[in-house]
């Protein structure tokens, strides 16, 4: 019996030693490294190895399965793709939650807010060499000028969509859309901040300077507009457009691009009064368990061939200049996919004013 136990003990110890030996092999710093054992294992290493699993917390329908599978195939890292449908949903779960996410996909103003609160990891650019592929006009943006925290994923703007079969007038801006003659035929995003920013644009105001006075000023405009809208929809505004319930509206450019791809009757117009641009990026929350793997994924997604796949499935504005070279002229000429974003500002974080904006829109909606 004793000899049996001793033998077993010997067996266990030798197995552990063998395992320990394989762990201590340092992982290559290059981006194409394969994930090996758990971070911080046996022997001292120059840098931690990537874990076998990556928790990606991203927008639903924003990361093609092909990209995920390709990454897993190459690196052996399993990607758990958990999804959300809005920035705030993501924030709620991230900040309240017990899951450790490695990657998130916040919009620009959210990155700003998270950075202010110290909730994002700084990126090591040496691990993400493909960052050079990002177009120059997508860098230097207010929320993250040196791309210290986020890797741009997709960009775009909210703009005007018109069914030219039904609407014969020329539509150039918000004022043309929100007219009494189109009452009940308009779709708008169900996003109070967007709505207010459009109203502010028609008053020539800066969308990022939100005060109580400003809100008072745009209130009548908003009140009038809200009465004209048939449906507010941020998730799938193309549905009422296709269904014939509305003829024009203000929606995300990506949604518009899908419509423009199918039929020539759809027109996408950047409002004359002014529009703002948005950009979604990959970022790493503080305390992410698999920072190494996360940066590997970022670099992988920045490859032109991979980025091309994303563009094919989700025709937003691709910030990757090298990937754009691989797109077809048809894709690049889609005015909704590649609107003129030059000179457009992004949303800044407005902190607590978000609550006041929401109250204003709720009040106006309830007043009907």
């Amino acid at each position: 019996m004793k000899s049996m136990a001793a033998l077993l003990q010997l067996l266990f110890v030798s197995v552990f030693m063998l395992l320990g030996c394989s762990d201590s092999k340092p992982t290559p710093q290059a981006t194409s490294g394969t994930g090996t054992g758990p971070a911080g294992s046996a022997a001292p290493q120059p840098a931690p190895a990537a874990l076998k699993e990556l928790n990606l917390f991203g927008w639903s329908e924003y990361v093609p399965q092909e990209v995920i599978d390709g990454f897993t195939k190459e690196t052996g890292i399993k990607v758990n793709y958990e999804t959300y449908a809005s920035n705030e949903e993501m924030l709620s779960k991230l900040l309240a939650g017990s899951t450790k996410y490695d990657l998130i996909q916040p919009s620009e103003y959210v990155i700003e807010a998270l950075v202010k609160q110290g909730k994002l990891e700084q990126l090591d650019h040496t691990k993400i060499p493909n960052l050079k592929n990002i177009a120059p006009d997508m860098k230097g943006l207010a929320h993250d000028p040196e791309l210290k925290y986020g890797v741009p994923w997709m960009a775009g703007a909210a703009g005007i969509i018109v069914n030219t079969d039904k609407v014969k007038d020329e539509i150039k801006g918000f004022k043309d859309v929100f007219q009494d003659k189109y009452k009940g035929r308009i779709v708008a995003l169900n996003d109070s901040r967007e709505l207010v920013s459009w109203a502010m644009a028609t008053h020539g105001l800066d969308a990022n300077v939100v005060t109580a006075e400003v809100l008072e000023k745009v209130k009548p405009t908003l009140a009038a507009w809200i009465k004209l809208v048939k449906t507010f929809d941020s998730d799938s505004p193309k549905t009422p457009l296709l269904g014939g319930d509305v003829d024009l509206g203000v929606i995300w450019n990506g949604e518009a691009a899908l419509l423009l791809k199918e039929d020539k009757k759809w027109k996408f117009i950047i409002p004359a009064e002014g529009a703002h641009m948005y950009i979604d990026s990959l970022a790493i929350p503080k305390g992410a368990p698999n920072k190494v793997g996360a940066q590997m994924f970022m670099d992988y997604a920045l490859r032109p061939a991979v980025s091309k796949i994303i563009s094919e499935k989700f025709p937003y504005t691709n910030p990757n200049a090298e990937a754009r070279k691989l797109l077809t002229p048809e894709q690049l000429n889609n005015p909704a996919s590649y609107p003129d974003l030059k000179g457009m500002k992004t949303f800044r974080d407005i902190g607590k004013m978000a609550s006041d904006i929401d109250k204003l829109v709720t009040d106006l909606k309830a007043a009907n």
Partner: protein
Amino acid sequence: MTPNTGQVPEFQGAQRRRPGLRGWLLFSPLLLWLVAFVVAPTCIMFVYSFCQRDELGQVVFEFSLSNYGRVFDATYLKILWNSVLYAGITTAICLVVGYPVAYFIGRASEGVRNKLLMMVMVPFWTSFLIRTYAWMTILKSEGPLNGLLQYAHVIAAPLDILYTPTAVVIGLVYSYLPFMILPIYGSVEKLDNALIEAAFDLGARPVSAFSHVIIPLTRPGILAGVLLVFIPAIGMFAITDLMGGARVPMIGNVIQNQFGQARDWPFGAALGMTLLLLFAALFALTVRKDEDAAA
């Protein structure tokens, strides 16, 4: 809580004793579950409702009553009333529409009964979103409903149903109908055959048989159905968003927004707590009334 039909004599002695040790033991799983997963989370929210918020909308532990002050704003009261109204209308329609069906199923023969029950539930095992989008497809301007009505020359131009309150009510009734039918079925199924036949045979018109005998006997089921429809319907917001075009905010939307775009968790918690308190009060009132009636 158990409503007394009034027709059956009150039982003494055997019923309603205080639980002994074994009784408490049997209660313990339920109690533990409640404490862990209902009481604790509710307490967390309760604490939050007195807190302040930071830039991201999260809680900062500084005591304040300001959130509750904001709850009693005219807009929110109006929205709450709207929600109660919609829930009430939905419950009433579900009751009228669902009762005959529940009765029919309950009185059917054994094999048929179970099949019918399943048939009631099966549509709801498809995803809520898919069902709702299907309804939206049916009701839209260029959808089959309008198409059919126009083809049959019943209407000239398409009806404006989708993205109106009518569509919202249709959506609500559709979603909650099974939760009215099933509890009533439970009550109907145990009705004594002899009693039913007697009610109909004794010369009364069928309407009287129903109103004087059957409906009172199925009162527990009706009450249960009303509860299971009215209460969840008040918090419902997805249907107003989808089928109502997100035009008329419900209290559910408002609360949802606080954890969303408005970034004000403490206020959301305060709204939620207020809703809870409202119900606790209403509930206490109805139970008291019921017990007084039984006494």
